[in-house]
């Protein structure tokens, strides 16, 4: 009879042997010039020098697969188990450091019908530049009216760590569910940040250099509380749109939902004094999506000219009837941070003249480019499969589509990393319904490279994950306020802001 101690030793050694054994690329194989089908698709993408391993699944009808990664200089590692390529984090760091500025060659082998096949090798290029180490997003099921179990989360891009910034679950009840949205930061830092809570315990959560407060941005002189925000990069003011938003449902169209504003304006909020003032409130214009330039001297925004014709109809009804007539253009407005005064508005992109609608502008921190979403009409492009990201050269005014970033599904909510080298977009290319973060390298010459999907530890994660990634935002540091701290402030009554007329 085996003594217990011996048994333990045998088990330990067996375990150690199993854990040390690693897959090996086959010595003999058939070559094919076909690229392997992998998910997510990381073939020929350019990745940041500090990103976590891009694990992927090989979809070649067999679970017997391996992939060999070879960096310049010959450093090579092979992985593969049960149809998945799961890369060791430390070894990936070695590979990407060795390949910085060049590429890692990836050879994928699959055992099909008792024979190994080597697919056409591809590269994963490693850029010289890092990416901001964190992003945040709202995880929400792409539902239309119900909002339960929504969380704003942050993800460390250098590994797979993810944590809640705020979840509506502790305060969300059947009778007073709470929608949370529009997380936003000043200059990629989290010491100044905000997000909104609607319905139950409603208000806007403002974090301002260590103090947290909940404010009600609705005044008698404004359309609504603040909606789409943009925190000024230097001084402590926030531009918001105020919107009367409605949604209705397509009976047949694949877009499924239409979200429209019947009225919208722009306001400026000062967190120091808790005052709001009007930036733009033309009753025949639908102003929305404010965005500051990096130097803080220009406010970009979108506006659609829309005049209601039929007084006998409710605005909502007329908007539903004429929703395809709403075309947003891009505007710029000068701003003097010292006097906090705005100059006149200048139209910088006339999408309406093209029969199109431009939304969600974001400016690169180096001040050279502006990205935005362009679709046939409307403002809520996440539900528009034709929505694509466009790039405007702010020096020449030239606009071109970022083909390498776009797909035949919706791309919306673009944003630049703090070093202007990475563009992230919320894309529905995986399945048309669930939004995923896609990131593209944007080189110094203004060229975009093939986008890659945010890597996950489990390559099949996105297949089984039934929530969208809304409003992906870059951050240079994690949010330090805990969800519990936010919850305790959320329980308090919001402070009413005051309206300051011009």
């Amino acid at each position, binding site marked *: 009879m085996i003594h217990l101690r011996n048994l333990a030793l045998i088990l330990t050694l067996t375990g150690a042997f199993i854990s040390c054994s690693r897959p090996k690329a086959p010595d003999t194989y058939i070559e094919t010039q076909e690229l392997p089908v992998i998910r997510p698709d990381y073939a020929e993408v350019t990745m940041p020098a500090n990103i976590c391993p891009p694990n992927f699944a090989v979809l070649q009808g067999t679970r017997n697969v391996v992939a060999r990664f070879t960096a310049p200089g010959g450093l090579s590692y092979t992985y593969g188990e049960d149809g998945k390529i799961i890369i060791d984090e430390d070894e990936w760091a070695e590979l990407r450091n060795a390949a910085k500025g060049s590429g890692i060659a990836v050879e994928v082998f699959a055992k099909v019908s008792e024979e190994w096949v080597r697919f056409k090798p591809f590269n994963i290029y490693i850029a010289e530049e890092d990416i901001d180490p964190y992003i945040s997003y709202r995880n929400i*099921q*792409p*539902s*239309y*009216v*119900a*909002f*339960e*179990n929504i969380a704003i989360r942050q993800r460390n891009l250098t590994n797979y760590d993810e944590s809640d910034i705020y979840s509506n*679950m502790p305060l969300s009840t*059947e009778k007073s569910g709470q929608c949370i949205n529009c997380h936003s930061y000043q200059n990629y830092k989290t010491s100044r940040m905000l997000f909104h809570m609607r319905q139950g315990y409603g208000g806007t959560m403002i974090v301002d250099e260590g103090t947290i407060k909940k404010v009600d941005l609705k005044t008698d002189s404004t359309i609504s509380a603040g909606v789409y925000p943009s925190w000024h990069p230097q001084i402590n003011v926030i531009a918001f749109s105020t919107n009367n938003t409605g949604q*209705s*449902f*397509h*009976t*047949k*169209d*694949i877009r*499924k*939902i*239409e979200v429209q504003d019947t009225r919208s304006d722009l306001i400026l909020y000062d967190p120091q004094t808790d005052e709001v003032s009007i930036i733009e409130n033309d009753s025949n214009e639908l102003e929305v999506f404010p965005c500051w330039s990096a130097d803080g001297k220009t406010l970009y925004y979108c506006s659609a000219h829309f005049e209601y014709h039929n007084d006998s109809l409710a605005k909502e009804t007329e908007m*539903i009837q004429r*929703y395809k007539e709403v075309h947003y253009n891009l505007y710029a407005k000068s701003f003097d941070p010292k006097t906090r005064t705005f100059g006149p508005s200048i139209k910088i992109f006339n999408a309406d003249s093209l029969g199109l609608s431009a939304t969600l502008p974001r400016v690169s921190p180096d001040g050279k480019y502006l990205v935005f979403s362009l679709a046939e009409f409307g403002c809520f492009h996440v539900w528009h499969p034709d929505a694509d990201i466009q790039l405007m050269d702010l020096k020449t005014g030239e606009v071109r589509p970022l083909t390498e970033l776009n797909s035949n599904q919706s791309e919306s909510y673009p944003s630049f990393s703090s070093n202007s080298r990475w563009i992230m977009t919320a894309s529905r290319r*995986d*399945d*048309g*319904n*669930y939004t995923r973060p896609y990131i593209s390298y944007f080189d110094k010459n203004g060229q975009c490279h093939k986008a890659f999907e945010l890597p996950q530890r489990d390559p*099949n994660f996105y*297949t*089984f994950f*039934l929530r969208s990634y809304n409003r992906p935002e870059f951050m240079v540091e994690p949010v330090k306020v805990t969800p519990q701290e936010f919850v305790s402030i959320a329980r308090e009554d919001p402070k009413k802001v005051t309206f300051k007329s011009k």
Partner: protein
Amino acid sequence: MREVISERGGLWAWIGCWLTQFFYYPWIGAAILILLWLITYYCLISLFSLKGWARLFALLPQCALLYLLLCLGYWIYYIKSAGIAFVPTLVLLYASFLALITDYLIRRFLHHARWWQPYLLFLLSFISARPVLKIYSVTMPEKSFYSELRMYRAVEEGRWKDIISEHHAIAQPTNLMVVYKNIALMHTDKLQDMFKTNNCGSVPAPITRLMPADTLQIHISRLAAPMIYFQYGQLNYAYERAMSNIVKYGLTARDIKVMTRCAIMNQEFDLARKYISLLKASIFHHQWANQQERFIYSSTLLMQSDEFKNIAPLLTDEPDNLDSDNGMCEQWILNHFADLLHPSNPKLEEVIITTSLWAKDEYAFDVHFYNYVNAHPNDAIPQLYQETAILLCTREDSPITLDHFPFDNFIADRYNRFVKDYNQLSAQRLSDTEMSKRLHAVYGDSYWWYYYFYTDFNLY
């Protein structure tokens, strides 16, 4: 999993959810539940050292749990506690087992035994499970609940005759049963029998918790809207309702299945693959998922399948509209089809006309009737349409004149008899209920009876 487990009592919810899937075959789910109850029973009699007849006390918790399950009824659609069928049992099992082990260890090693020790340990173990305690109603559910469950499963599996049989066996169907019945008639090309089969739905009684303030009305939208919309070819709304159900009440295979079907019919194949992957990972739905996957790769197979070929004609060529059902599924279906013009095929044409009759939308019928007779100048007018035209042409503002159409004399004669009988009973000053009963015996299969005596048409 992480999300569920991080909640209070989340571990039990997760295990409960996992075990719930075995109710796909009710006998397996029931067998697992009974097994867990037996283990709990033996734990309790050991813990409290029950002997003889006193052992019956150890069965009380299981009886209470069984009664709770039997009383759930329509609450099953509204309770947000995941894995409700198993969670109380799992908590009881955990508490009794943990208390039993702890009691044994204390007696064995500390040589400490007091009469109150098992009771205290059981209480502490129960608290340590961190259960979420909720109180629900203690009234037995109506029969309609079980019939609706059976009918839903039959709709899902395309067993149309079973639906009609189930409906036929119920004296007082609910609106939802009527909807299911009409879907079955639609699939078996028997919509002309809509009023020959009982089309008078009722509203199930509201369900209440112990507190009257928590009375909850039952809504068709929650019970079956995704499947109803799908069967009527309203793919976007079916998808939307299924998604809303998942958000509000948690992921279920039945909602995912509707979403899969919608994605396939909408040719959103990447989306369909996603849901199929989910279902393939389940124990009981992978076969269904494999079957659906074939449709992604062959549109011919799809259009020839029993499941889809009857729905395809309902995918109208009407323009897209922006609309909302405001949570009223049945009302939206009735209004939508009654308002549709220019049907492109006979199936849709029949659905449109019969729906306008179902909704008693006289003006819609006028339009559809004229469209029908103009589109079919050489065809006989179906008896149901003739019955309705004869009835409605007597309206002052009716555009229908009988002279222009080839009506069957026997229908006109029967209608005259109906009017005569009606007037005679009215003259006797009978109550509406009595008149309804007496005329039903002779004219219950006609639209006239439905039109005059089904006055309690409440949508929910």
